């Protein structure tokens, strides 16, 4: 069996359909344990008290916002170069999920900023570049929706996604390049993470849970798009007749 087999829409459709319930259950398990450890087991922070529990949502969401953008841009690039239909559909399915995680990172950051910094929002390099990321996602979806032909829409949106990739290292290094109010990384810094295992465990569980959640939602989105794009094929017509 070759991996390229899964690049065929009909095989991908069947395979992803079997995968989704398992991924959904895994998401629930990871997020359930992560929430339990984060809200009930992890101790209060010695500086920030209970407010630091916002981190278990905020930090994994911010990671997802950048991770999904890179997946979207790479899928878009593959679609541009090799004209593979599935990578176009993948890029398109990423955008709303990525925009959602960006919005969560921004809103939860504001809810954390108010008690810790005294302001919901400051025009700081980290916050501003993350807001630009939200606009890039929205721009991607708007551009895609404005072009009728799905393949032309995918190509135009992929070019926009690729241009916007420059924002990702800016977000990541913003806390080092500029004097910002936002604190630097605790987990991904060189050497050992400066975070206690009792707080690191729920953080990583939430992060992995969000990753599996993302895969689940993207597969669900892709399956509908595949049906629409393949509506003139025999397998879709057979599927419509057999499935109620």
């Amino acid at each position, binding site marked *: 069996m070759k991996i390229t087999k899964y690049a065929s829409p009909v095989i991908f459709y069947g395979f992803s359909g079997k995968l989704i319930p398992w991924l959904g259950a895994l998401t629930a398990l990871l997020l359930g344990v992560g929430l339990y450890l984060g809200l009930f087991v992890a101790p209060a922070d010695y500086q920030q008290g209970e*407010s630091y529990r916002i981190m278990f949502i905020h930090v994994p969401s911010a990671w997802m916002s950048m991770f999904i953008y890179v997946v979207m841009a790479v899928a878009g690039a593959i679609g541009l170069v090799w004209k593979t239909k599935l990578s176009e559909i993948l890029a398109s399915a990423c955008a709303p999920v990525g925009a959602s995680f960006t919005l969560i990172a921004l809103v939860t950051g504001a809810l954390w900023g108010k008690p810790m910094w005294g302001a919901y929002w400051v025009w700081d390099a980290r916050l501003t570049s993350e807001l630009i990321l939200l606009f890039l996602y929205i721009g991607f979806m708007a551009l895609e929706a404005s072009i009728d032909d799905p393949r032309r829409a995918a190509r135009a949106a992929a070019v926009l996604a690729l241009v916007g990739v420059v924002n990702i290292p800016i977000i990541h290094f913003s806390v080092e390049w500029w004097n910002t109010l936002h604190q630097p990384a605790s987990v991904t810094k060189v050497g050992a993470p400066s975070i206690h295992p009792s707080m690191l465990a729920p953080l990583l569980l939430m992060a992995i849970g969000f990753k599996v959640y993302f895969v689940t939602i993207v597969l669900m*989105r892709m399956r509908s798009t595949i*049906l629409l794009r393949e509506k003139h094929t025999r397998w879709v017509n057979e599927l419509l007749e057999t*499935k109620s």
Partner: protein
Amino acid sequence: MNWAEFFAMGGYGFYVWGTYAFATVVLVLNVIAPLRRRKAVMKMLRELSQITRGQVE
């Protein structure tokens, strides 16, 4: 553990629960949207295939 204390979150209750509530709403909407879209797509394609079949007959 005391539940009132748990919900108070050391005085940060609004910010902490606001965070968890907002994230939950957005993530649940992201599950509902593709489910509804799938239903709509299936319905539309079924209607479409009935129309084309009608034209053939």
